[in-house]
C-alpha cells in the first residue's frame, strides 16, 4: 500500500482529505531511481481551483514526457491543514510521491491572479524554502514562476529565482538540459541562473538592480550581471498544432471548478479591447487546426470518461472553423451522452442554434459582456459590441424560448462619466423592454436580467497601463449611484444587480502595477497571517492597509496616480511583442473615442508581427 505523507488521523481531521492524497486517474507514476530531475508544479490556491487549470495539465504532461524528469503536483493546503502543518511541523509534500517539496530540483509556481501572492509565500514557507531567492542555498529547489502575472513580476520578484516570460512549453527542455549539465559539472546555483539568463524569455530578478527618484518613480532598471539580458522578450509557440497537448488529463475525484475536458482551440485574440491584458500579452492569435482538435477531443473523452467538454479561448467565436468543430462535437457527444459547454460565444444565429442543441433552454442563460453602458464608452475601451447587436441577439434568443440574460460591465474605466454609468441601467432595462414586446401568450414567463459590475483595474501591457485607477470611495460611490439608477428603471423588478468587492480590487491594483518595494508588504502581510486573499472570507483589508503604513509604502502611489508617458514603468524591461508606442497610440485613440479595427480587418502594427506567427502579415514571409 502506498505511503501517504499524512496519517489517517490527520487526514480525517481535515476537510476533503482527497485534496492531499493524489492517485487520480491518469496520474503519472515513475520510479525515482530512473529520473534525474524532479519538478514540483504548484498552483498556489486550493486543490479544486488548481486542478482546473489547463496550463498545469499541459506542462505536467509535457515535462513527464521526458524520461529523465518527473513532474509532480502541489497545491496550497487549505486553512485547516495549514494550521495542522504548522502545529505539527509537517513539511509540504507533493501529491504523486508524497515527498517533501524541499527535496525537489525545481518548484514551479503558476501566477494566474495577483490575489494569490501570499499563498506563494505559504507554499515556500511550509516547504521549508527561504522566502527570498538570495537566501537560498545549494540544496534548495530552484523556484520558477510563470503565467500572466509575470508580465509584471516585480512585486514578487524577490521570491523567485527566475521567471519564464511567455509560453512555458517552449523553453522547459532547454532549462532542464542546462540544469542537468550544470549539475553534472558541479556548477553552483548562481552559475545555473547565469546560464539560463542567456535564454530568450528568462528573467532572473537578482541579476538586476532598481533605483528610484525622489518622487518614488523608477530612476533606473539596470542589470548587475553580464549574463543577463537588457530586455526580456516573451517566448511563444508559433504552431500550436505541432506541440504537445495532453491526451490523458488527470481526472480528479472531487468536483473541481473545471470538471471536464478542456480543448484549447486557439491562443491570443484579435479584438484589442483596451482594458484587457490577455488580449495584448497573448498576441498574435494562433489557431489550432481542426483535425488536431477533433482528434484530441475524442482521445481526451475516451481517456478520462468526463461527461462534459468545453472549448477554451479568449473569444471562441473568432475561431475560423468554429462551425465545423462544434457540429462535429455535437454529433460525437450526443452518442456518448457528453455535454458541450461553450463559453465566450457571441450571440448570433449560429450560437443560438448550437445552444438550442446542447443546452436546456429552461436553465441556461445568455451572456453578453458589453463592459460599458454607452456607445461612447464602448468606443473608448474598443469593445466592438453595439447596443443594436445586443438587442438583436437578445430578441432572437427570446423568440427561441430563452428568458434569462446575464450582462457584465465594469465601473471606473478612463473617461467614464455618470451618464455612462446610468447607461448600464438603461441598457439592462432596454433588454427587458425588448422581451415584453413579445405578445404575452408567446412569452416564456418573466424575463430575468442579471447585471454585474466589476471594478476596473489597469493592467501592464494594455493601453490603460498609465491611467489613474479609481479610489475605493469613488468605486463605492459609482456603485451606489448605479444601484439607485437600476431601481428607477421601468423593469427594475426583472433586473438583479450584483457587484464585486471594492477592497480586493484596490489591492489587486497595487499588485498589478507595483514595483519591487511592494514585496516587503506582501512578506509582512503573510507573516502577519494574511492568506487566501482571493477568498473573501479570509481577506482582511484593514490588516493590509495597516501593513502598508508600517512598511512606509503608499498604495495610492500605485493605484490612483496617472503616469507620465515617459515614466519608466516597472515592467518596461519586458518585451511582450506589443510595443509601448502602440499602447500609447491606443491610449490616445481611447481618449478620442476612436475605434481600432481588429486584427482580421486590418493590421494595426502593434509589434507582435515580430513573432512571425499566426495571423500576422509577416508570418507568411517566413
Amino acid at each position, binding site marked *: 500500500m502506498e505511503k501517504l505523507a499524512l496519517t*489517517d*488521523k490527520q487526514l480525517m481531521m481535515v476537510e476533503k482529505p482527497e485534496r492531499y492524497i493524489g*492517485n*487520480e486517474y491518469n496520474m503519472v507514476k515513475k520510479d525515482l531511481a530512473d529520473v534525474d530531475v524532479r519538478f514540483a508544479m504548484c498552483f498556489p490556491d486550493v486543490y479544486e481551483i488548481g486542478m482546473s487549470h489547463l496550463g498545469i495539465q499541459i506542462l505536467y504532461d509535457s515535462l513527464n514526457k521526458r524520461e529523465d524528469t518527473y513532474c509532480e503536483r502541489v497545491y496550497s493546503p487549505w486553512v485547516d491543514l495549514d494550521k495542522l502543518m504548522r502545529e505539527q511541523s509537517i513539511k509540504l509534500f507533493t501529491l504523486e510521491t508524497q515527498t517533501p517539496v524541499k527535496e525537489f530540483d525545481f518548484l514551479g509556481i503558476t501566477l494566474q491572479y495577483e490575489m494569490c501572492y501570499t499563498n506563494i509565500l505559504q507554499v515556500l514557507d511550509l516547504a521549508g524554502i527561504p522566502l527570498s531567492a538570495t537566501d537560498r542555498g545549494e540544496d534548495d529547489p530552484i523556484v520558477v514562476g510563470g503565467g500572466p502575472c509575470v508580465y509584471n513580476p516585480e512585486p514578487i520578484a524577490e521570491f523567485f529565482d527566475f521567471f519564464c516570460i511567455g509560453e512555458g512549453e517552449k523553453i522547459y527542455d532547454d532549462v532542464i538540459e542546462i540544469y542537468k549539465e550544470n549539475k553534472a559539472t558541479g556548477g553552483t546555483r548562481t552559475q545555473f541562473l547565469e546560464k539560463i539568463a542567456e535564454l530568450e524569455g528568462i528573467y532572473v530578478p537578482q541579476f538586476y538592480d532598481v533605483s528610484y527618484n525622489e518622487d518614488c518613480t523608477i530612476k533606473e532598471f539596470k542589470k548587475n550581471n553580464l549574463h543577463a539580458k537588457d530586455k526580456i522578450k516573451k517566448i511563444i509557440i508559433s504552431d500550436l498544432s505541432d506541440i504537445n497537448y495532453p491526451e490523458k488529463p488527470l481526472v480528479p*475525484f*472531487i*468536483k473541481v471548478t473545471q470538471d471536464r475536458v478542456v480543448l484549447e482551440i486557439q491562443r491570443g485574440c484579435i479584438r484589442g479591447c483596451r482594458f484587457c491584458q490577455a488580449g495584448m500579452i497573448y498576441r498574435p492569435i494562433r489557431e489550432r487546426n481542426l483535425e488536431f482538435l477533433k482528434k484530441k477531443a475524442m482521445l481526451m473523452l475516451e481517456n478520462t*470518461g468526463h461527461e462534459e467538454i468545453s472549448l477554451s479561448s479568449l473569444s471562441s467565436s473568432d475561431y475560423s472553423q468554429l462551425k465545423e468543430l462544434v457540429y462535429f462535437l455535437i454529433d460525437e457527444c450526443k452518442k456518448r451522452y457528453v455535454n458541450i459547454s461553450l463559453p465566450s460565444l457571441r450571440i448570433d444565429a449560429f450560437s443560438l442554434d448550437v445552444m438550442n442543441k446542447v443546452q436546456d433552454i429552461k436553465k441556461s442563460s445568455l451572456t453578453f459582456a458589453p463592459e460599458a453602458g454607452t456607445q461612447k464608452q464602448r468606443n473608448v475601451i474598443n469593445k466592438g459590441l453595439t447596443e443594436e447587436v445586443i438587442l438583436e441577439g437578445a430578441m432572437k434568443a427570446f423568440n427561441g424560448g430563452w428568458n434569462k440574460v446575464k450582462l457584465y460591465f465594469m465601473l471606473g474605466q478612463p473617461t467614464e462619466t455618470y451618464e455612462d454609468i446610468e447607461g448600464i441601467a438603461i441598457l439592462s432595462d432596454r433588454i427587458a423592454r425588448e422581451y415584453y414586446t413579445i405578445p404575452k401568450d408567446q412569452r416564456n414567463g418573466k424575463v430575468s436580467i442579471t447585471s454585474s459590475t466589476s471594478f476596473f483595474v489597469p493592467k501592464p501591457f494594455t493601453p490603460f497601463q498609465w491611467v489613474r485607477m479609481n479610489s475605493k470611495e469613488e468605486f463605492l460611490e459609482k456603485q451606489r449611484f448605479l444601484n439607485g439608477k437600476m431601481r428607477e428603471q421601468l423593469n427594475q423588478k426583472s433586473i438583479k444587480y450584483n457587484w464585486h468587492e471594492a477592497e480586493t480590487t484596490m489591492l489587486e491594483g497595487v499588485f498589478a502595477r507595483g514595483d519591487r518595494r511592494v514585496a516587503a508588504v506582501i512578506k509582512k502581510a503573510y507573516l502577519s497571517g494574511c492568506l487566501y486573499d482571493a477568498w473573501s472570507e479570509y481577506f482582511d483589508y484593514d490588516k493590509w492597509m495597516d501593513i502598508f503604513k508600517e512598511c512606509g509604502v503608499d498604495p495610492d502611489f500605485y493605484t490612483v496616480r496617472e503616469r507620465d508617458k515617459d515614466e519608466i514603468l516597472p515592467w518596461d524591461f519586458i518585451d511582450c511583442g506589443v510595443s509601448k508606442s502602440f499602447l500609447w497610440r491606443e491610449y490616445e485613440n481611447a481618449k478620442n473615442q476612436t475605434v481600432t479595427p481588429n486584427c482580421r480587418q486590418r493590421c494595426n502594427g502593434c509589434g507582435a508581427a515580430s513573432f512571425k506567427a499566426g495571423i500576422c502579415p509577416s508570418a507568411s514571409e517566413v
Partner: protein
Amino acid sequence: MKVRIRFSKYGVIRFIGHLDVMRSFQKNFRRAGIDVEYSKGFSPHQLMSFSAPLGVGITSDGEYLDLSINSYTDKYDMMKRINDTSVDGIEITDIILLNDKAKNSMSIVKGAGYYVKIRQEEYEEKSNPPSKQEFYAKFSEFLANEKIEVLKKTKKSEAIVDIRPLIFEYECIEDTSAINSQSFQVDDNGICVYLLLSTGSNDNLSPKLVMDAFCKYAGYDFDEYTFAYHRTQMYSRDEEGNLIALSEVDKNSEKTDFYQKK
C-alpha cells in the same frame, strides 16, 4: 437489464467519499465502454444505485452497486474492461446478472461484516495500551452482556437504544495472518475483531458506535481515530431469515451466456 457489481475499495482511495466514488464510477464506465442505460430527459444520467454508502477512511471487499445496462458481452469481459480503466484501489471482483424481479440492493441489505483493527501509530501513542489478550478478553466480556445501551443520535432526536440485538455475530481473531489481503492488513499490535452488524434503512448500526460503546465499557482512552474499519461483505436475508451475501440474491441463472467466457 440490471447487473450487480461487487467491488473492493482500498489503499489511499479509502479517503474518497461516497458521492465521489459514484462520480468516479460514472467516468470509469464511460472509459470502459460499458453500454450503460441512461435516464430519459434533458440531462440524462447513468442508472445506478449503491447498496449502502461507505464512510470516508473505511476500506472494503464487499461493496455493491446495481447498474442498468442495454447489452452485455459476458461477465469476464465486462470485469476486465472496468478494471483496466479503474483507478488504483477500486477493483471489481464479481458481476451478477439480476433477474427481472430483483429489487435494488439498497432496499434488501440487512447486514454487513466488518474487521476492526487498531492503527499502529495510534496504538504506540497510548501510554499503556492493552495487549491483544486483554483486549480480546474485555471485548468478549462486553459482548456477553444481554443489553448494550447507547445514546444514539439521529438528525431529529436522541434516544437510548439497545444495540446488542443488532450485533449478529462477533469474533476475536487469533490468527490474523489468515485474513490479511491486498485490501486489508492487520497492524503489528495484532488486534482485530470481526463484527456482523445490522445494516439498512432500519436498525442500521455502524461499527464505530459499537467500538465507542466498548471503549467506554472497558475504560480505554481511545478516540475516533484509533480504529480502522474494513467492510468484508454485505448480506440480505432469504425466505427463512438466514443471512445470505448480496451476490447470491436475485441472480438470473437462466442467462448462462453471461457467466461463460466468450
